[in-house]
């Protein structure tokens, strides 16, 4: 049972390059989330999705785009990477039933922008 899988685990980019982070979940969850974790800042929500074909902005959406074409996948894109986007990115999912259901997290993608 894989749960939430993030690809890649590590990546180094140059300023201005683009890339896509992939999140896949096999739990048939409706809700999916992208967070970034920075030192002293905790987890901050970038974008989230409440179902296939839907996306919404979180606390820190600038510089990122997302897509949810399939229920099991949630993609996070950086169109023109900036050093300020150096961070650890976590994807999470949770079911729509039971508003008190916690999120299940992937193991993160460590991204460095030079």
């Amino acid at each position: 049972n894989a749960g939430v899988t993030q690809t890649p685990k590590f990546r180094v980019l140059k300023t201005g390059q683009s890339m896509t982070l992939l999140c896949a979940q096999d739990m048939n969850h409706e809700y999916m989330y992208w967070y970034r974790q920075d030192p002293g800042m905790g987890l901050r929500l970038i974008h989230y999705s409440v179902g296939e074909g839907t996306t919404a902005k979180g606390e820190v959406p600038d510089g990122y785009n997302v897509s949810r074409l399939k229920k099991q996948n949630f993609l996070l894109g950086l169109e023109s990477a900036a050093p300020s986007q150096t961070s650890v990115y976590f994807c999470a999912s949770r079911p729509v039933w039971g508003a008190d259901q916690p999120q299940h997290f992937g193991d993160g993608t460590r991204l460095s922008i030079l």
Partner: protein
Amino acid sequence: DQQVKQNSPSLSVQEGRISILNCDYTNSMFDYFLWYKKYPAEGPTFLISISSIKDKNEDGRFTVFLNKSAKHLSLHIVPSQPGDSAVYFCAATLLNTGNQFYFGTGTSLTVIP
């Protein structure tokens, strides 16, 4: 503006003693609170939660206390074990929206054998 705060970045406790991790929040509308545990190079994992209609929830060695008037919650671990060494995040949400969870900055707990 940080809506959920953990003012202690780190905590060290002797094995067998009690660990108390604290969390404060500013939004009085929050009605559900969670604690997550995170080991290095892994994602956070759910530990325990509490609804605003309760003031205490217990699960084995872990107990969460909620003081709504003070907008404060705490996680008690008794007895502490070396395997409890990790970063602990508290989080809060509004159940009727259920879409956004607000996380604290984390407290790194070290349990000394």
